[in-house]
């Protein structure tokens, strides 16, 4: 209990400290900080919009790519895989979750980006070029690469948590559906997934939180240019990347404050996302307790 309060106090203290450090920027730009595209250290004009946009879009892209795949993998492992394959897959998923981000970054840089530039992006442009999303020079460095790397990084987490959530669905729920004459797939679709819905959303939200905070791998593949472009092939910049890239060079107090201002937003958003995720998983657990007698 004391520990919990202590931790809460620590988090609060951090928010306050970061808030103070961001003070000059908050005072100078206020809310317009979030809607300004310009980031000009020379003239002391700072706006976080391109970074917020970069983080938002790369994260959503990652969730879009990782979500269905992870859920499918979780369903397979939890419901259909034979025991042996279950154990092996579970082990591999955990292993993948433990790989440091920088390794993914290097892999993205040396393997993913060249492949995107040489193969996937030209093809996407050929077939889907009528959408502005898939138009522009195929450099292999940009939003698409960032989304894919992020997706690979968060899918072990989403898979592992979803699997746990699926496995705590009580047997009585499955049996109820089976007794009505459901096939194994219908049992998953009509009994297990609806029952686990809250927990699965929680797992996705945890993945979202992880994606928002990810730094190193992204910095290596996103191109680091603060722009807002409709094309997924174009370079972009994220909140975390700009902080890590510019922090050591920020000599102007206002520049430093602007970076910390971004950090503050990042901190609050991840705090919120993780709280929501935990809450949903907690609610799911409570439901299980209520419905298993």
């Amino acid at each position, binding site marked *: 209990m004391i520990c919990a309060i202590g931790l809460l106090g620590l988090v609060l203290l951090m928010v306050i400290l970061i808030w103070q450090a961001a003070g000059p920027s908050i005072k100078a730009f206020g809310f317009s900080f979030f809607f300004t595209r310009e980031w000009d250290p020379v003239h002391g004009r700072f706006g976080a919009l391109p970074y917020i946009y970069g983080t938002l879009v790369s994260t959503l892209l990652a969730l879009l790519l990782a979500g269905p795949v992870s859920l499918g993998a979780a369903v397979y492992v939890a419901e259909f895989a034979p025991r042996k394959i279950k154990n092996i897959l579970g082990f591999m998923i955990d292993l993948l979750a433990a790989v440091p981000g920088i390794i993914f970054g290097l892999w993205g840089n040396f393997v993913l980006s060249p492949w995107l530039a040489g193969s996937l992006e030209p093809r996407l442009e050929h077939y889907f070029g009528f959408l502005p999303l898939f138009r522009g020079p195929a450099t292999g460095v940009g939003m698409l690469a960032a989304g894919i790397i992020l997706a690979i990084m968060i899918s072990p987490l989403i898979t592992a948590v979803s699997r746990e959530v699926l496995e705590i669905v009580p047997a009585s729920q499955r049996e*109820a559906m089976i*007794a*009505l004459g459901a096939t194994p797939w219908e049992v998953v679709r*009509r009994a297990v997934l609806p029952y686990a819905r809250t927990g699965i959303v929680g797992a996705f939200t945890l993945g979202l939180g992880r994606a928002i905070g990810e730094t190193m791998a992204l910095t290596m593949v996103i191109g680091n240019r603060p722009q807002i472009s409709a094309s997924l092939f174009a370079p972009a910049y994220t909140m975390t990347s700009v902080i890590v890239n510019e922090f050591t060079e920020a000599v102007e107090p206002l520049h430093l404050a602007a970076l910390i201002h971004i950090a503050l937003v990042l901190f609050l958003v991840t705090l919120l996302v993780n709280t929501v995720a935990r809450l949903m998983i907690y609610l799911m657990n409570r439901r299980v307790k*209520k*419905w298993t007698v």
Partner: protein
Amino acid sequence: MSYKLRVEALQAWYGQHQVLKGISMPIRANTITAVIGPSGCGKSTFIRCLNRMHEVVPGTRVAGRVWLDGRNIYNGINAVEVRRRVGMVFQTPNIFPAMSIFQNVVAGLYLNGIRGRRQLQERAENCLQQAGLWEEVRDRLHDTAAGLSSGQLQRLCIARALAVEPEILLMDEPCSALDPIASIRIEELMRELKASYTIILVTHNMQQAARVSDYTAYLCDGELVEYESTPEVFIRPKDSRTENYITGRGADTRPL
């Protein structure tokens, strides 16, 4: 009178542990058969073999024959069809908490590909009425089912089982989680349902077995000890083990 179900030399295992040791028992159409016996004797296992729910648990095995209208459910009919013809109500009301009351009732119809709104509504009302729940829930059909009392939940499970129009209804201690009034309500319901269904009821409650059933089977340690019309079993039990059990002197049959 015809036999709806004929069980022949039924054996069942959990892994290496043999639970049913060769049970043979014909069951007549439109009757209620009570299955009684000490805890752990295999009553649940027995009725789970009658709609092929036993094999759902990994590592289990079944041998023997169960003839449903002259066809062996373990040979030539797929399990899904068997389960649609032989419905089941479990000991604890296992409704789907993420669904509304209405969706719970029609869940089985949905599986059968019946999607017409009108048709579903009619069937839902009909089954809820049969289960004696209609008056209580008609104004909140689309609320979540999680808000009902446990007696109502069990009747909802019965309505859900009835909705697919099974021929046989298996009930595994359906009243064990209910208070006496709710239990009586379910017993009345069973008597009404007898006209259109064949019911097999597992119960620990001797009064209940005596009140509602036409036939009573006494299982002990995986074997069928006695199977006669209910008055016979309760008034003139042939086997001393049955007598001890129903009179409550079960010390020699119930390993404690």
